């Protein structure tokens, strides 16, 4: 075994030498997120977005005259792996990082990037403290935070739908539960609505018939669900099967074509919040078209946000004229950039200005933005 | 059976039911100091079950098992866990050898010393002088036992690599390492060739004589039993059908019938 260890360390030595040996003069864009495991569907689209962006930019001469090199690292959405991933990206000399996907992994990794002075932009980490706590000056995101979404969902339920009894459910994950907690908070604060049920459901459970029965029992007029589309589709299908008229309201994790496909006509009549409909923006349509041309399928979750983040980061480097941390972050905070999610710049905390949420209604198997 | 000998084990009306099946039916039996008692009977007579009841592996349905250690209080063994029974001074071997195959021969015997030693977790970690001494003493006494059963040369072999007869002897050594005053041997000669059986016979006699350990054995080898045992108990269908000296047993018609009945099958 000892011999083996020596062997391994020697091997490692070679690897590291090899790695540094290849260091050519390129702009290095790190991409971190889950690329394997059960959360991979949320990480791969952003990764592919980065690949497409880089391919296009390199074809047009790169950034600052240099080619952009991608450093793709899998963090499986696990905090402990994310720290390794972050260290790896830092060590490999990433200039900017697109990632991470899950809020937990992002939180764990941010400290490392902060020490290394690397700007990080997440297409999907919506946890409010990431920007609001002020702990992470190097953090940006191309998606709005959970509390904004929750506020929007709650306002919509109270003012537009006029419901009096609301059930709040979540999937026990950091994203879903965070959203649900805010929703409950805002509902309670409004004083106009009674939260009849607040519970977590188990992702991957065979069915949700008990919880659906419970919705009927408490006569909930609306259900606000925090979580992702697989559970949401299951919930709406079962609600339809039980002939329940409860209105389904959910978050951006549900505003995914998979939700429409999987839930089918059960999805009709559901409301979800999500980034404003930007398909009228040429860049957005172009990004989708690019993906379809390359992979022959619809882009998945956080594709547009990932595409935007990659664009924003590379644009900032181009405008800053270097990869210097202060220069890049300054550009990010001051200059607008055209992206698939709109013309954006970032506020002092790192949230994107110009990225707003809308409420969508599912009608005839499509999301329709409600103005 | 001299009355002045100390009675070590007294089993009264022992009964063991498995569901509707009565495997042992009110068997009474006594073992005295210095005895090499034998329990014989056809297959399925309930002998091993009887052993299992005494050694705490089964909890008997009825009856009393009383142990009278010399100079100590009488103890009732019913319902005690096997390890407690062993601690009281009653050790056993198994019909179908149950050694620890991936441990060395020496270590197998060292396990027997477990209940006679007492250093705990913290002592093991700190490994003070007293612990090291105790360890060394365990090794020495175990090695000594291996010499006694003639296995000293194999001390560092894995026990699974021993020949069959040697494994049986190792089981005896391991049982003896628990410092018993009564040793229960379950078919110690099973599967042995005549030479090995005769070695075993000597070994049992030696243990009985030198170590002052009384022995109760289950055995099918009649020659061995008749040579060394007194008294002999005979079981059939869970019941004790006879007891007495080898001569008495030989001439007992019930016993003859039991065995002849079996042989004609």
């Amino acid at each position: 075994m000892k011999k083996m260890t020596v062997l391994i360390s020697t091997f490692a030595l070679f690897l590291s030498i090899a790695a540094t040996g290849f260091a050519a003069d390129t702009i290095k864009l790190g991409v971190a997120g889950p690329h394997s495991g059960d959360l991979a569907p949320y990480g791969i689209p952003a990764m592919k977005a980065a690949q497409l962006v880089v391919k296009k930019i390199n074809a047009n001469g790169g950034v600052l005259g240099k080619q952009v090199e991608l450093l793709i690292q899998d963090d499986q959405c696990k905090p402990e792996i994310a720290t390794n991933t972050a260290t790896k990206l830092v060590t490999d000399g990433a200039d900017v990082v697109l990632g991470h996907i899950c809020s937990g992994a992002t939180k764990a990794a941010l400290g490392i990037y902060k020490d290394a002075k690397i700007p990080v932009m997440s297409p999907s980490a919506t946890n409010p403290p990431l920007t609001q706590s002020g702990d992470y000056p190097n953090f940006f995101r191309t998606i709005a935070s959970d509390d904004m979404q929750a506020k929007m969902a709650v306002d919509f339920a109270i003012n537009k739908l006029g419901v009096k009894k609301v059930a709040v459910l979540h999937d026990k994950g950091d994203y879903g539960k965070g959203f649900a907690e805010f929703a409950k908070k805002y509902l309670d604060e409004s004083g106009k609505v009674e939260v009849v049920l607040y519970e977590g459901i188990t992702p991957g459970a065979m069915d949700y018939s008990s919880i659906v029965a419970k919705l009927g029992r408490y006569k909930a007029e609306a259900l606000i669900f925090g979580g992702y589309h697989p559970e949401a589709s299951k919930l709406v299908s079962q609600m339809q099967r039980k002939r329940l008229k409860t209105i389904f309201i959910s978050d951006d994790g549900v505003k995914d074509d998979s939700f429409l496909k999987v839930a089918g006509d059960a999805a009709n009549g559901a409301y979800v919040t999500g980034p404003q409909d930007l398909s009228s923006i040429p860049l957005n349509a172009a990004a989708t078209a690019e993906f379809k041309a390359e992979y022959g399928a619809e882009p998945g979750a956080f594709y547009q946000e990932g595409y935007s983040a990659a664009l924003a980061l590379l644009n900032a480097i181009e405008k800053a004229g270097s990869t210097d941390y202060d220069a890049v972050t300054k550009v990010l905070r001051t200059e607008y950039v055209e992206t698939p999610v709109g013309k954006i710049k970032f506020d002092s905390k790192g949230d994107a200005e110009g990225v707003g949420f809308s409420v969508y209604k599912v009608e005839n198997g499509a999301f329709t933005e409600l103005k | 059976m001299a009355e002045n000998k100390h009675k070590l084990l007294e089993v009264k009306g022992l009964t063991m039911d498995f569901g509707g099946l009565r495997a042992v039916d009110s068997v009474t039996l006594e073992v005295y100091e210095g005895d090499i008692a034998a329990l014989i009977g056809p297959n399925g007579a309930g002998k091993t079950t009887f052993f299992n009841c005494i050694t705490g592996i089964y909890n008997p349905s009825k009856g009393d098992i009383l142990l009278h250690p010399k100079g100590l209080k009488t103890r009732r063994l019913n319902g005690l866990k096997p390890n407690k029974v062993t601690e009281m001074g009653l050790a056993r071997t198994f019909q179908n050898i149950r050694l620890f195959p991936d441990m060395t021969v020496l270590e197998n015997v060292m396990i027997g010393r477990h209940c006679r030693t007492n250093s705990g977790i913290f002592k093991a970690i700190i490994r003070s002088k007293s612990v090291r001494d105790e360890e060394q003493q365990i090794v020495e006494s175990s090695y000594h036992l291996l010499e006694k059963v003639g296995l000293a040369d194999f001390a560092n072999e894995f026990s699974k690599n021993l020949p069959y007869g040697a494994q049986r002897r190792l089981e005896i050594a391991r049982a003896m390492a628990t410092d018993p005053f009564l040793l229960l041997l379950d078919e110690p000669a099973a599967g042995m060739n005549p030479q090995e059986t005769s070695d075993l016979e000597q070994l049992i006699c030696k243990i009985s004589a030198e170590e002052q350990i009384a022995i109760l054995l289950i055995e099918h080898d009649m020659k061995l039993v008749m040579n060394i045992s007194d008294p002999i108990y005979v079981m059939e269908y869970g019941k004790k059908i006879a007891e007495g000296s080898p001569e008495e047993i030989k001439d007992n018609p019930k016993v003859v019938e039991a065995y002849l009945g079996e042989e004609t099958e």
Partner: protein
Amino acid sequence: MEYFLQLFFGGLTRGSIYALIALGYTMVYGIIQLINFAHGEIYMIGAFVALIVAGVCTIYGLSGVSILILAGVIAIIYSCAYGYTLEKVAYRPLRGAPRLSPLISAIGMSIFLQNYVLLAQTPDFLPFPRLIPDFDFMEPVAHIIGSPELVILITTVVTMILLTLLIKKTRVGKAMRATQQDMNMARLVGVNVDRIISLTFIIGSALAAIGGVLVASYIGQVNFYIGFLAGVKAFTAAVLGGIGSIPGAVLGGLVLGWAESFAAGYISSDYEDVFTFGLLVLILILRPAGILGKSHKQKV
């Protein structure tokens, strides 16, 4: 009362799926004392194959019931093939190895199959077509028990009856029971034990595939990961009922289904899995061999 009935039938439906999967665990365990950890993946593969077949059929213009039957049959065939291969590759070479070895091999197989499907197909959830139509006559009670639930229950009952007949009445069933009781003895009296073991895997896989297809068309989605949790729950059900016992697996499945349903309905679904495993521990403490399991006196 209506609420109670909703929970009752919800639990019954879930429980019967558990039971279908649990049967595979219990039959395999009964014969070779192995926890076939990869059994949940067989269930997932069944559902996935059905999805693919249904998809191809839809595109090539078949309709309704014919798709259901075709998808179901092909899914069962493939699950059986996978189950059979699984045993041959991962377990048969380990016969006679220490107890932990095949178990580890099974865990390895489970991980392998999950990732195989992930790589071969997609990590996404895929929509499973609703093959079971809504019957008009069920409409009045649809808020309590819907058509898919009815179909699941009927299919499960029919499957159980067929299984019982197979085991009790046929020669093969007799050989299976004999092998379960004493493999060496069965071999001596001329039972081809290897074949019986393969057959057990095949039957178990078929049951899992039936469960997989039913669930997939009930909840309408499939991905590579659905097998793990379903497998763990079904295995819990098998242990609960007494592993190795066929009626035990069914009872265990139902008990677990109801326990989960009522606990979520009357208490909270926050701690759903805690209830499940709490129940398991409780039953095992009271009855170490499970509800219907025979406690073997270990032979010494």
